């Protein structure tokens, strides 16, 4: 087991829609309560990824942002961060990408005017925006977690809640997985990736992409602990008192869309 959680927090200032930084707060809280050392490295457009400082990062997070903020970081992401992220993810590094960041991990984003924005091409998916006449995907959402996670012995050992995820989604782009087996959850409530195929999010090795804001990890302590355990390379974590977290999760399951 690794004795330290070192988080690479990408574009904290630009990509923090709907309090997505709460995902970091949740992870830091859950690690600290267990006396696990935590360090959060903020990585922005000025950060050069060639330092040895980045080699021992064991969790990466990137959230969602408005279009303007995503444009601000896009060039840096493609030019300066792509290689690091690809190497990290393909080596089995643990990471979480929400909304806009989830889309950017895919192959491309096709706008309604047919212009294409290149993605990092790490997740096998693409995103399409059909224009303003197609309603955005907005509302409370819930899904049943993929067997890729629920059947993982680490999750089985860690999970003391249920096999569901809850969150809040707000996206105009529709995302399509090239292989639906890689979904994060099956949609129970809400739009999911595209309002069509009941998929939500994506799993690639130990990395997750999702449209769930909430923040995701605050409302889903079982997923938080799963990612924490994966990052620390362990299958056991001290049990925390999660009365509030579990109530928030269960109440969110009952919310209307």
């Amino acid at each position: 087991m690794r004795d330290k959680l070192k988080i690479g927090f990408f574009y904290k200032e630009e990509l923090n829609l709907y309090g997505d930084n709460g995902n970091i707060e949740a992870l830091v809280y859950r690690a600290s309560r267990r006396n696990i050392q935590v360090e959060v490295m903020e990585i922005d457009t000025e950060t050069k990824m060639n330092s040895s400082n980045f080699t021992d990062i064991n969790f990466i997070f990137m959230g969602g942002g408005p279009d303007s903020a995503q444009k601000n970081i896009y060039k840096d992401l493609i030019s300066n961060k792509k290689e690091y992220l690809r190497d990290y993810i393909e080596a089995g590094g643990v990471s979480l990408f929400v909304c806009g960041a989830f889309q950017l991990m895919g192959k491309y984003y096709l706008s309604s005017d047919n212009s294409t924005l290149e993605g990092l091409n790490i997740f096998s998916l693409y995103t399409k925006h059909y224009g303003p006449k197609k309603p955005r995907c907005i509302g409370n959402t819930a899904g049943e977690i993929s067997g890729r996670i629920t059947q993982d012995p680490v999750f089985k050992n860690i999970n003391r809640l249920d096999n569901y995820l809850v969150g809040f989604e707000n996206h105009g782009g529709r995302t399509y997985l090239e292989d639906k087996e890689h979904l994060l959850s099956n949609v129970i409530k809400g739009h999911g990736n595209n309002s069509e195929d009941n998929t939500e999010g994506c799993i690639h090795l130990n990395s997750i992409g999702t449209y769930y804001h909430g923040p995701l990890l605050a409302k889903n302590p079982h997923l938080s602990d799963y990612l924490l355990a994966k990052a620390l390379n362990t299958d056991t974590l001290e049990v925390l008192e999660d009365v509030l977290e579990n109530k928030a999760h269960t109440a969110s399951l009952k919310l209307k869309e």
Partner: protein
Amino acid sequence: MAVRLKHAGVNIEERNIVPSIASVVKELSKNKNIKEVIVLPNYSSMLDFRKVVLGRKIL
């Protein structure tokens, strides 16, 4: 919100957590000594709160 406050080190007693916005407004309106209430909603609860207080979600 209670979870976010917990993570930030603010201890909220469970008896002070009311899960329904309508119930909160009802309870508050019973207490005539309360002159001002500060609301710190997230996006989705802001819409629900507006609906309860103003009758519509979007202004």
